[in-house]
């Protein structure tokens, strides 16, 4: 098996075993209702995680996604509820703003040659601050278009419901997988994460690709923000605080190397589902408290980082100076 597939296989196996074990304990978990809710409840996280996957494969990180989700929610809510703009137009505006925002971060990262971490940190402050300047409060959205969208449901046998946003997430994952694995842009993203110097010598347009990657991440975060506003029917400036950490965790647990170069968009899907399973299990159990979610995610994160370290030991970037203490 390919080296890069091993962490993904590990995630898939862990997911199957964990799910099977949970089902044995709580047979109720094996229902279309639970599965449908899996998709709906994690839709915004999943969409944001797709963008994060591209960023991490390229060797970067995007700390701004949670803030962009919050900002977009507020922007959309204000455009619809205060200014009376049709939701579709509001969506287009929000996605456009996010695209410019991501492009600005990408340009800064490439031309000032600074770590993506610090640039996207500034982006996070800017987006979160911007949202709070627009409004401090939660802005409800009551628009029939929203009702229509949330009403779009495919009923499954067994009482399950596939919601619009759940299906949208699945669509984003499929499109993301296509983009990553079947387009030149996708191959450039992997090339940057593998070795930026080689990539540029091989003719990869480094500047353009970098800008596109962060644009993609911000646009998907904005889409996640729209989904979140559909999910909650409101826009709140402090919504989705810390979602970037969940997204990063899902990406890493899904088998993407945090140092870049290797990874799968569909692996991230498994990662998101695994996080969802942990949460659902804890809700089902009833006696366990929600803080266990974070601990379990942390432990999984650690296991996968060490696993990757072992699998990729030979090719991991970093200081290779022969050093002995």
């Amino acid at each position, binding site marked *: 098996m390919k080296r890069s597939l091993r962490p993904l296989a590990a995630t898939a196996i862990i997911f199957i075993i964990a799910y099977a074990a949970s089902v044995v304990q709580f047979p109720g978990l094996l229902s279309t209702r639970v599965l449908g809710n899996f998709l709906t409840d994690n839709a915004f996280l999943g969409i944001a995680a797709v963008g994060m996957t591209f960023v991490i494969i390229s060797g970067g990180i995007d700390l701004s996604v949670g803030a962009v989700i919050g900002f977009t929610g507020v922007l959309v809510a204000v455009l619809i509820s205060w200014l009376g703009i049709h939701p579709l137009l509001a969506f287009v505006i929000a996605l456009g703003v996010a695209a410019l925002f991501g492009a600005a971060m990408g340009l800064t990262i490439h031309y000032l040659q600074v770590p993506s971490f610090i640039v996207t940190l500034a982006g996070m402050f800017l987006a979160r601050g911007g949202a709070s300047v627009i409004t401090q409060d939660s802005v409800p959205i009551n628009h029939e278009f929203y009702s229509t969208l949330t009403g779009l449901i495919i009923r499954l046998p067994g009482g399950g419901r596939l919601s619009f946003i759940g299906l949208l997430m699945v669509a984003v994952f499929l499109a993301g997988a296509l983009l990553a694995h079947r387009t030149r842009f996708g*191959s450039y993203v992997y*090339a940057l994460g593998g070795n930026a110097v080689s990539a540029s*010598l091989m*003719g990869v347009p480094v500047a353009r690709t970098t800008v596109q990657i962060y644009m993609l991440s911000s646009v998907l975060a904005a889409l996640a923000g729209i989904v979140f506003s559909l999910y909650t029917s409101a826009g709140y400036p402090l919504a989705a605080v810390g979602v970037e950490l969940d997204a990063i965790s899902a990406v890493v647990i899904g088998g993407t190397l945090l140092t870049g170069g290797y990874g799968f968009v569909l692996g991230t899907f498994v990662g998101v589902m695994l996080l969802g399973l942990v949460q659902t299990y804890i809700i089902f159990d009833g006696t366990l408290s929600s803080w266990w979610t974070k601990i379990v995610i942390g432990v999984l994160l650690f296991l996968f980082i060490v696993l990757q370290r072992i699998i990729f030991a030979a090719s991991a970037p970093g200081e290779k100076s022969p050093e002995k203490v």
Partner: protein
Amino acid sequence: MQDSDYVLEARGVTKIFGNHTALDAIDFGLRPGEVHALLGENGAGKSTLIKVLTGAYQPDAGGVFVDGALVTLDNPLHAQTHGIGTVYQEVNLLPNRSVAENLYLGHQPTRFGLVDHRKMEKAAKTLLERYGLAIDPSSDLGSHSVAVQQIVAIARAVELSGKVLILDEPTASLDRNEVERLFEVIADLKKSGLAIIFITHFLDQVFAISDRVTVLRNGRLVDTRQLDSVSRTDVVRLMLGKDIAFSGATDLEPERPTTDVLLDFKSYGRKRSVHPFDLTIHKGEVIGVAGLLGSGRTEMARLMFGADPADQGTITVAGKPTAIRNTTDAISRGFGFCPEDRKAEGIFGDLSVRENIIIALQGKLGWFRALNRDEQLEIAGKFGEAMDIRAASLDMPVKLLSGGNQQKVILSRWLATDPAFLILDEPTRGIDVGAHAEIVRTINRLRDDGMAMVVISSELDEVVAYSSRIVVMRDREMVAELRGKNINPGVIVQAIANSADEAQP
């Protein structure tokens, strides 16, 4: 030779960095269907010339001609469109991607805007079969040996350029079988009319596949020769600038009467790095190390210093058997080491001259017995003066100093630790004449004060002048130990070239 015969030509190419002339009016011509070896020690200007020929650097004077027409090459990608492809020593491909993608990245066949993997892999398979590679094009490049990666890199370069192939030390990390395989590929490409520049420091490889050789030294063109008319010894002499007839006795440093033995290495070696060697070093003795680049001379130095610890053999320091597992062990036993790559392994660019000088001594003293500022200034001042370090202030960042002064700083760093044994790897490379003389003077002075030293240098005149013995390295093995009358450039050149001459009659 008519100009029109050359597919790629450099005429009077000069490249100047600051006040250092890296290339001095170089003329270089490449014919189609030939393998042209480019030889020279580090700093001779090989890589600068290659960078000019591939557009990474722009020449300050002279020009590059492709098929007789003057061209301006903006960058390596632009050079590619002129038919010039390059494969570097460290394969500049993507180990994390498939073989097929590495061949076609940026030019992947698409269908409805999507990459057509099947078509790409089919094309890759056909292409690689021409190079005798029957590997799965969808496998990760990183899962293959360096040799295979090297051939994939060549296939990509030839596919995208097609006129000239520049191979920059492609064999440095290959074993014998892999080298042969690579040579078969090169021979095939040559037959198809490709012009190939081959850079290496292995002489037998030069003789095995090249038609002509150009030798550079200190940024100057030494000569271009037809290879069937020269011997290996001739080539070594061209590279090192030594006239083999020169063997008259100079005021040679007499071998010291065997006083106190300081160090005794017995079957000391490290797998895949240096073959086990025996070496005894006395106090007040300079052991010169001669050998071409890649002969294992630097590896030997790192081994002695514990930077790459030995995995076989024993070492005795001043009569006591000991173990050197790391650099800290070595330093505590009075060793010091000036590495060849000053910038990457020697200086702390952002730190001050003062800190750069005292850091090894401070390392020896440990975390808590800190030298205060006055002590630091005193030590740095003392050595700065003794070594004639030209710095506006001892508190200026060392990166602002010239190469020669940086080298003096590193030497001072070790002298401050009061070492018994110093290892100097190419201490005089790439520095100005004044600093050069100062460092040679220092080596002589230290030897007379009773310090033991191992000095690696390609400057044979210099090694001959201060060494009491000379060991010769070849193929990661110590092949000769020269004493007395044998310490002269002629014999050294002979020893370096020797086995190669025997190997191929």
